[in-house]
């Protein structure tokens, strides 16, 4: 059964087409990654599905309940964690959770036990009775998600759940989301990072300018854009053919000369590691002195370049506080090669 179904969602703001006929389905119990740059329409889609925003056209349902006709019933089935950690700053973590329980009309003892259980689950027991403006960003995010889980939603919406978190908190958040999914909660999450979708999502929908431009598993997407690539730099240009033949058996496609450097080769490899040490050994044996070897994982930008022929770009004022240069600039962090050991 599909937990979330949307068909032909349209939402225009003047000239800006935040949604321009978006379709999506999310099978119950699965994790959908809505992938797209700033302003692609991810947040707008979440806001429509969570009853916060009325679309201009189209329909949507959660667990078979019509979002537009029965918003109240939909609200009792969903949990929403928006882009900001929406917690009451002057209340403690426990008070925040109990307040949500009260809004769901849980009796006092259920509220209290639910709050304690969630605090424990999200590793907040120690900080439970501190006001939340003393919490770190990661703790606030965890509390924020815990607050969306008080009433055991059947579908959880997470809008850029790791934006603004440091790498350690980000990985912590990933394991939280994985656990939720293992418990059978349907999760819809938006992200700008292919790596994050790779880690968490069963299926990915890539959106651009309010429409779906690709759909499938992350592996399928990666296949379409050529997967991981190895980039090898050697010391001397005259050895380039030696290097080429040394690498031939290790790569999965054509070996190309890097367009920025005469002594650097780039080639697609299979995902999963082990290629780098093998490549170094082979190059050494062939007598081509290695300067640098890196494995570059595809980024959202690569996906975009392949699917649309242009770079991922922010095209409206999607209320995200992330640095849009990550998606815009070809030399930015999103494009830095990642080295695997």
């Amino acid at each position, binding site marked *: 059964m599909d937990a979330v179904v949307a068909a032909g969602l349209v939402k225009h703001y003047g000239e800006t087409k935040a949604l321009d006929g978006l379709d999506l389905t999310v099978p119950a119990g699965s994790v959908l990654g809505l992938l797209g740059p700033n302003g692609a329409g991810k947040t707008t889609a979440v806001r429509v599905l969570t009853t*916060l925003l009325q679309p201009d056209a189209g329909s949507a349902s959660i667990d078979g309940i019509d979002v537009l006709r029965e918003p109240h019933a939909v*609200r*009792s089935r969903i949990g929403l964690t928006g882009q900001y950690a*929406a917690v009451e700053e*002057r*209340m403690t973590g426990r008070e925040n959770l109990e307040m949500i329980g009260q809004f*769901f*009309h849980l009796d006092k003892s259920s509220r209290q036990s*639910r709050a304690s*259980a969630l605090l424990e689950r999200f590793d907040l027991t120690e900080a439970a009775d501190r006001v939340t403006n003393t919490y770190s960003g990661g703790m606030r995010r965890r509390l924020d998600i815990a607050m969306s889980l008080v009433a055991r939603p059947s579908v959880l919406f997470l809008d850029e759940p790791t934006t603004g978190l440091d790498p350690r908190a980000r990985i912590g958040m990933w394991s939280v989301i994985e656990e939720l999914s293992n418990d059978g909660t349907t999760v819809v999450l938006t992200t700008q990072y292919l790596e994050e979708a790779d880690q968490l999502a069963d299926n990915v929908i890539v959106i651009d300018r309010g429409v779906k431009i690709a759909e499938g598993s992350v592996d399928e997407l990666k296949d379409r854009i050529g997967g991981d690539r190895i980039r090898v730099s050697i010391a001397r240009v005259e050895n380039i053919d030696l290097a080429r033949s040394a690498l031939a058996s290790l790569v999965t496609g054509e070996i190309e000369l890097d367009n920025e450097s005469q002594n650097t080769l780039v080639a697609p490899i299979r995902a999963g590691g082990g290629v780098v040490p093998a490549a170094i050994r082979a190059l050494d044996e062939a007598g081509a002195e290695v300067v640098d070897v890196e494995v570059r994982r595809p980024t959202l930008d690569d996906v975009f370049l392949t699917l649309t022929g242009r770079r991922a770009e922010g095209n409206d004022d999607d209320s995200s506080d992330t640095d849009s240069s990550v998606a815009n600039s070809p030399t930015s962090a999103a494009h830095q090669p990642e080295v695997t050991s």
Partner: protein
Amino acid sequence: MTTAAREAATPNMASHPKPGLADAWRDASTEAMRHLRIIPRNPELLGFSTIQPVMFIVLFNYVFGGAIEVPGFSDYQQFLIPGIFAQTMVFNSSFTAVGLADDLSKGLIDRLRSLPIARSAVLVGRVFSDIARTVLTFTTMVIVAFLIGFRFEGSVAGAIGGTVLMMAFAISFSWIQAFIGMSVGSVEAASAASFIWMFPLTFVSSAFVDPASMPGWLQPIANHNPFTRLVNATRALYNGLPPGEHLWWSLFWIAAITVVFAALSIRRFSRVTN
């Protein structure tokens, strides 16, 4: 009990009926409790709602008190204090706008809107919790006013009636402020937009001087100002004089402003986008 057992004991809330009036009231109380709970944890706000009115009473009384003479009142205090009370309580309504804008900018309004609660709950809860702060402010003002010599010269019923009238007027203004808070873009904008217009509203009135002393073109404005009606009615009730038509006008304005702006605000709330 283990965690797992506790979790199992919690009912699943999947079937949640559409909220009736009782649910709406219950949700509004939950929201009001959130604001009441944090009042003692917010010393800046507490300071502003008590120190500012005290300053106004003392400053106006001693700075202007000697210079202003008001026909019918031998003592400026008896004329001034009800006006200051009313002005302060109306000024206090701007916290409604600022607080809502703050919740909106932090994503709290989105969170609350995604819950299966009555659409009126968040606003009703906020407006009613503001009464608590108003009572606190009023109590402080009464004490200070007594210390500098003000007395309720009418009946107990008059004193209570005048006070209730002011509170109701302040609540009706909280609804205007709720609308402002959800219509402007930021907390800064809300604090300006909620406050600026209240200066002419409260000063071009009978609160501090007799409108008869104003320039001719300003007098009709001051005389028909809803705030003048409130001040005149309260002043009469506090001083044991008949409030006359001012009481009926005050009640009319309270009802009209509340009905119009509560409807506008709740409509805005269901559509507001961050």
